[in-house]
């Protein structure tokens, strides 16, 4: 199909009469669907619920920390609450969020394919997610799991609380994650449309590809690790129990071998989203396409060699500390490359300042600040003071919330018309975006300072000198929560009453916009042949100005 026709089409937008949303009807048709788009939508609903739950837990924690003593809950409740917050946010929201929702929905569209390689496995991964999520949540709420999401042995194996269900849940969620990753890798290898070489892939696809590699390689290890902890807890096998000669530090090695790369499972798709969205809203070829693509793979690779920087004060050897620290610096360089390229993509663009742009601006600040404080905590001598304090909390929330959730919101706003064919209210979008960026800063910058002052993480009560900063952080959190509520309201409104968006409201050149919005059941009504690069914003026959910087 010729893209230029589409760009010059000025007729009023029409909502496609038959699309994947209404091709089949009834709940059953959704539950048994093997359509990647519907699976993506179901993931969207699921992770939003998980995010809401995790957010409620977070607010409860922040309210509890308003005063140095007990405020609204007991110590045990607090300990369970931060465990719930961590497990729900990481395993139920962060890891499946962007790959599960946008990966599923967009990957085949971006490849010009009719579906992912294994559609049934894809549905299976959603069911595994639901099963794992249910088991983990019920287990945590009924069993009162209080170990934190890190499950450090021997505390986890000696706590009187029930632990096995949540570990089983995480094991199953791991399976879901592996299946998704495997499916995506095979899809990218085999289902690219004619004409789409590897160097024509959209950057989001590259990011998902790198993410999937990590999912496939790292997740089995966490699966085994949580299984071992579960067996040890139930059966007393003594593998991590020092009273029986076991080594608790071994647990930490195995745990972080997954959980450090898991950070990149969360953040790489976010980077992919931003790469694509920046190009679309700046109407410009991505600056340094290859550098961005390869740095995704580089992060995926080097990310595996950096896990020991979570263990600087754990009793690990100084030699290992140094080795892991220096490798961690390389991850920073790859991220820095991406940041330079994003900013340079904006340079001399034709930028349409829309809601996603506010998030992109926030994202750029957060990822640089979050990333460089990551480098700071990987600087061994500094980590000694910061380790397990609120500084670390603030650092990874800058990445997890500041980068990943911003990217999730960018994706949600950028691809909302693609998914539902309707437009949200731009004004409210801007208001919510500004609130969230401000609220985020107000929440987490005080936490950096708390960490400097020496407040350790997972503290139910704290010395009085930390109160002022805690109150500031809680105030910021309520601003943040308020922003999310606005988004929820206007998006639900847009779903029902929103203006019809048209097939390509942003005039984006991404391949996913080559079909109708929302797309038909089998994605494309016409054979797809790719005859241009993915972020190619030149009109055919247009004089191209080349600038070297």
């Amino acid at each position: 199909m010729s893209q230029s026709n589409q760009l010059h089409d000025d007729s009023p937008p029409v909502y496609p009469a038959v699309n994947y949303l209404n091709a089949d009807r009834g709940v059953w048709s959704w539950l048994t669907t093997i359509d990647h788009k519907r699976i993506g939508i179901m993931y969207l609903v699921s992770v939003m619920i998980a995010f809401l739950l995790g957010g409620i837990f977070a607010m409860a924690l922040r309210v509890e920390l308003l005063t140095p003593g007990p405020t609204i809950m007991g110590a045990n409740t607090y300990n369970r609450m931060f465990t719930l917050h961590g497990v729900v946010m990481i395993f139920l929201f962060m890891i499946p969020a962007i790959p599960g929702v946008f990966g599923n929905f967009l990957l085949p569209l971006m490849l010009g394919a009719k579906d992912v390689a294994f559609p049934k496995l894809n549905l299976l991964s959603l069911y595994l997610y639901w099963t794992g999520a249910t088991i983990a949540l019920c287990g945590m709420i009924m069993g009162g799991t209080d170990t934190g999401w890190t499950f450090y042995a021997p505390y986890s194996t000696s706590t009187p609380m029930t632990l096995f269900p949540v570990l089983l849940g995480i094991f199953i969620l791991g399976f879901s994650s592996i299946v998704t990753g495997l499916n995506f890798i095979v899809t990218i290898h085999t289902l690219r449309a004619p004409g789409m070489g590897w160097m024509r892939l959209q950057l989001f696809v590259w990011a998902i590809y790198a993410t999937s590699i990590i999912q496939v390689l790292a997740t089995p290890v966490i699966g085994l690790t949580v299984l071992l902890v579960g067996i040890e807890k139930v059966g007393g096998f003594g593998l991590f129990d020092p009273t029986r000669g076991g080594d608790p530090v071994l647990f930490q090695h195995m745990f972080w071998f997954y959980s450090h790369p898991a950070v990149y499972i969360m953040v790489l798709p976010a980077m992919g989203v931003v790469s694509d969205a920046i190009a679309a809203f700046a109407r410009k070829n991505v600056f340094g396409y290859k550098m961005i693509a390869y740095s995704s793979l580089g992060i995926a690779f080097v990310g595996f060699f950096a896990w020991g920087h979570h263990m600087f004060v754990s009793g690990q050897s100084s030699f290992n500390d140094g080795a892991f620290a220096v490798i961690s610096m390389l991850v920073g360089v790859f991220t820095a490359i991406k940041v330079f390229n994003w900013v340079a993509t904006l340079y001399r663009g034709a930028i349409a300042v829309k809601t996603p742009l506010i998030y992109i601006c926030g994202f750029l600040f957060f990822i640089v600040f979050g990333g460089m404080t990551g480098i700071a905590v990987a600087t061994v001598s500094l980590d000694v003071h910061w380790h397990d304090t609120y500084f670390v909390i603030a650092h990874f929330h800058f990445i997890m919330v500041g980068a990943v959730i911003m990217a999730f919101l960018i994706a949600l706003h950028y691809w909302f018309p693609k998914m539902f064919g309707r437009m949200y209210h731009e004004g409210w979008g801007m208001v919510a975006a500004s609130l969230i960026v401000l609220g985020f800063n107000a929440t987490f910058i005080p936490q950096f300072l708390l960490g400097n002052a020496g407040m350790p993480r997972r503290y139910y009560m704290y010395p009085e000198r930390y109160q002022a900063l805690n109150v500031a952080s809680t105030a910021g959190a309520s601003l943040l929560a308020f922003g999310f509520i606005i988004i929820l309201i206007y998006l639900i409104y847009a779903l029902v009453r929103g203006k019809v968006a048209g097939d390509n409201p942003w005039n984006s050149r991404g391949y996913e916009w080559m079909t109708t919005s929302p797309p038909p059941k089998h994605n494309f009504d016409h054979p797809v042949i790719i005859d241009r690069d993915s972020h190619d914003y030149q009109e055919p026959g247009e004089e191209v100005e080349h600038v070297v910087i």
Partner: protein
Amino acid sequence: MTALDDLMRRLLFLPEARSTFAVPVDRLHFFVITVTMIASTITGLMAFFFFFKYRERRPKQSTPVVVPSMRFEFVVIGVPLFFFLLWFVQGFKDYVWYTTPPKNATDVYVMAKKWMWKFSYGGDGPNAIGTLHVPANRPVRLLMTSRDVIHSFFVPDFRIKQDVLPGRYTETWFEATKPGRYQILCSQYCGTWHSQMWGEIVVMPGPEYDQWIIEQRRGLAARVDTGGDDGPSFHGSIVEYGKKIAMDQGCVKCHSLDGEPHIGPTWLDLYGKQETLENGETVTVDEAYLTDSMIDPRGKIVKGFKAVMPTYKGRLAAPEAAALVEFIKSLRTQNLDTVPSKEAIYEPVKPAPRR
């Protein structure tokens, strides 16, 4: 320079640097964080600036193809890498210094346990719970182990932290630069009262410390260090008041609040319980028994425990004793699942000889 350091320290809410290690750490910290703030602000502002400078001026406006030159690629890879490696080199250098205790350091053995710190000075030296006395301007090495789970020994003023592992020793050292009292916090999550596992380091001038240790050795000052200073009068519920007294008087150092037997019986579910005494009698734990036990602890010892509790006669005013009783009464199993509590089996390992 020091004025600037002090300004930075205040801006960043850092506590004052009170150990020899804290000084280089803070210097590097200021350097790293300044660069971080500059870089992230520039990135954010630059994006914001571009939004206006290069905003879309007409629909479907065409844009140039901007490509990186070799020089640009070199700069974007080289500059961050230079800074990161510089920080790594300096940080690792300081770290190696920090992980290599000087040979002449005074050794103190640290035992962590839910939720207290115990210090012993080796040989016939004194033991202390909750409070560590050290000399100023002399290196002190801590050899640490845990009786149950992983804890972490953290002194914000000294910028030091080290996990304390069960079943093995870890070490850390510091040289305090100024006499004073500094807080010890546990920073590795270790259960219900993780957030209350505090202790105190009392740094004394060298000669004073020498005097102190001699006195301790003589046994003249065989008192229990209570840790924490006596604050102003307490406003709050009687249960909270009782809790504060329990913390201040060091009750919780022998009586656990989580059902685990320690040096004394646990306080969890204690009130109303039938206890068998040393002499075979049974007694119902009520207000009278609790108050009696504070004043005359050796009168009615619960079977299986040693008569080691000192009398609190004269150390507790009547309202304080009552508050304590109320606090004990408030400790009911509703938050904690009931499980057979078990004593930690692990005994400290014998330390390896100094190399």
